[in-house]
């Protein structure tokens, strides 16, 4: 009996140490898996080179072109504009679509999304020639934010949000894309855009502790808009909860913030990479993989302990799933649903390579 107590006391004394170790441990990937990941990313990039149009674009879209370009520029191989036309042509394609208002887009109805991903890619070139274009685009993105300028009071549920750019209906996905772009391009952390965005993001979260709106759910996750989810009522789902977590971190909330904790707890409780948890018919699956990788990287924990107490190495899990889904030609595509453009292999491949870049990034 006494011996058992000693063992228990010894075990308990180790727990905080183990916890601290888990929190600070550097990412360690199995060597064989790390090699597979690098080869998989290379295969994805090779596919993108083969599917690239003559003008350097992908899918005749500024958004897809910018994401594919980013996949190259952020890859461990360190591609730059000096590597040739497969990098300089898509850069030129983006620059050819710079509009007078600062947006970078081929259409008027995806201007936020296109401009946001375009300046992330231009920033990743590290070319100082694009500084003015990026600054102008930042102003354009800030101008899309719903605030007093459009007659919205801070108490309005849409206040601080950003939409596609063709209307004033904001959503969390567009906010996350814009915040990621503004963060990547070093917008002043004191700029009011962050605080306003934080107001909107807080009101999207299904968390009555911090949300001053009447929320349908109270699980800490995120739907698409305040009180609305495309997967039913205001249901939280994986893609948006990772986007919400990332948006909170970008907007200045720290890991101890109750909103961040609630979002992370939702991810723990719904941890899976087999589906986009909470979504119908695997809709938005690759969007989920991409934003999950970025949010986990930004959160900074090497593992996720689910509600049952099982510890998951998210890098290994995500990489294993992406390797499993990669097609023989090196591409990825959502076989279950084309919604949100996921029937386009260029888009899914770009997102997957960016996710893998985050998996192996130190």
């Amino acid at each position, binding site marked *: 009996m006494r011996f058992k107590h000693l063992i228990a006391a010894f075990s308990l004394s180790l727990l905080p140490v183990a916890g601290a170790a888990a929190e600070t441990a550097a990412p360690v990937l199995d060597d064989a898996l790390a090699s597979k990941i690098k080869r998989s990313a290379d295969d994805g990039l090779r596919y993108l080179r083969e599917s690239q149009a003559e003008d350097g674009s992908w899918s005749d879209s500024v958004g897809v072109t910018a994401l594919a370009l980013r996949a190259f520029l952020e890859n461990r191989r360190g591609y730059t504009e000096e590597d040739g036309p497969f990098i300089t042509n898509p850069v030129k394609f983006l620059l050819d679509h710079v509009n007078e208002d600062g947006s970078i887009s081929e*259409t*008027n*109805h995806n201007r936020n999304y296109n401009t946001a991903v375009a300046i992330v890619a231009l920033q990743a070139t590290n070319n100082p020639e694009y500084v003015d274009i990026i600054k102008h685009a930042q102003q354009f993105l800030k101008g899309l934010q719903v605030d007093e300028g459009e*007659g919205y009071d801070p108490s309005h549920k849409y206040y601080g949000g950003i*939409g*596609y*750019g*063709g*209307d004033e*209906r904001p959503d969390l996905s567009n906010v996350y894309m814009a915040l990621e772009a503004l963060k990547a391009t070093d917008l002043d952390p004191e700029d009011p855009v962050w605080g306003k965005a934080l107001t909107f993001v807080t009101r999207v979260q299904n968390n009555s502790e911090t949300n001053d709106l009447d929320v349908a759910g109270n699980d800490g996750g995120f739907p698409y808009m305040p009180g*609305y989810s*495309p997967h039913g009522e205001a249901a939280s789902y994986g893609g948006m909860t990772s986007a919400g977590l990332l948006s909170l971190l970008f907007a200045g909330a720290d890991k101890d913030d109750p909103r961040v904790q609630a979002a992370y707890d939702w991810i723990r409780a719904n941890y899976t990479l087999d589906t986009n948890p909470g979504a119908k018919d695997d*809709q938005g699956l690759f969007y989920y993989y991409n934003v999950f990788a970025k949010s986990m990287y930004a959160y900074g924990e090497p593992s996720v302990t689910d509600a049952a107490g099982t510890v998951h190495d998210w890098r290994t899990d995500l990489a294993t799933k992406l390797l499993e889904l990669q097609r023989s030609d090196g591409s990825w595509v959502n076989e279950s649903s*084309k*919604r*949100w*453009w996921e*029937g*386009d292999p260029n888009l899914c491949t770009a997102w997957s390579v960016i996710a893998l870049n985050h998996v192996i990034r130190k």
Partner: protein
Amino acid sequence: LIAALMWLAVAGVFGLTSRTLAGAAPSVGLMLYLLGALAWLFRRIAGSLAAALSWLMLASALAASTPVWLGPLIARLEPDRGTINLMLAGNPLTHLAAGTATDYLRSDWFYRHSPLGGLRYDYASSATTLTGYLAACLLTSAAARRPRRARRAPADQASPRPTNPRQENAP
């Protein structure tokens, strides 16, 4: 005139700016003309103005709401982008939105009630929809103004063909 006043009232409710109104004016003008021509045509077919207006309202509602009632089927069939664009080009809301650069499929109401906002699509350009609606206006006007075809008289009837259409229908 009533329709134009209704449009101005809608513009006021949604807070449309004078610039937006000016941009939409050609589209709205053609749309109102087409509705008038269709009402005239339907009246000739239905026989009464009340029936014609009922038909017109039903047809307009069906045409404008295609993203809602046809959208789920399209989202399930997952056709190519061209098919979706074609369906959208036929929607009168696309014609009205083209002049104001409004992305109506991503508006709050449509995004909640139609899956099309989550698919890849492109709206027809303002010039394309204006051309299409101008052609529709001309065709509908021609059909509405076209004299009714006279009933063929029996070969052995000696009496001349009536010149007044009302007379032709008389018992």
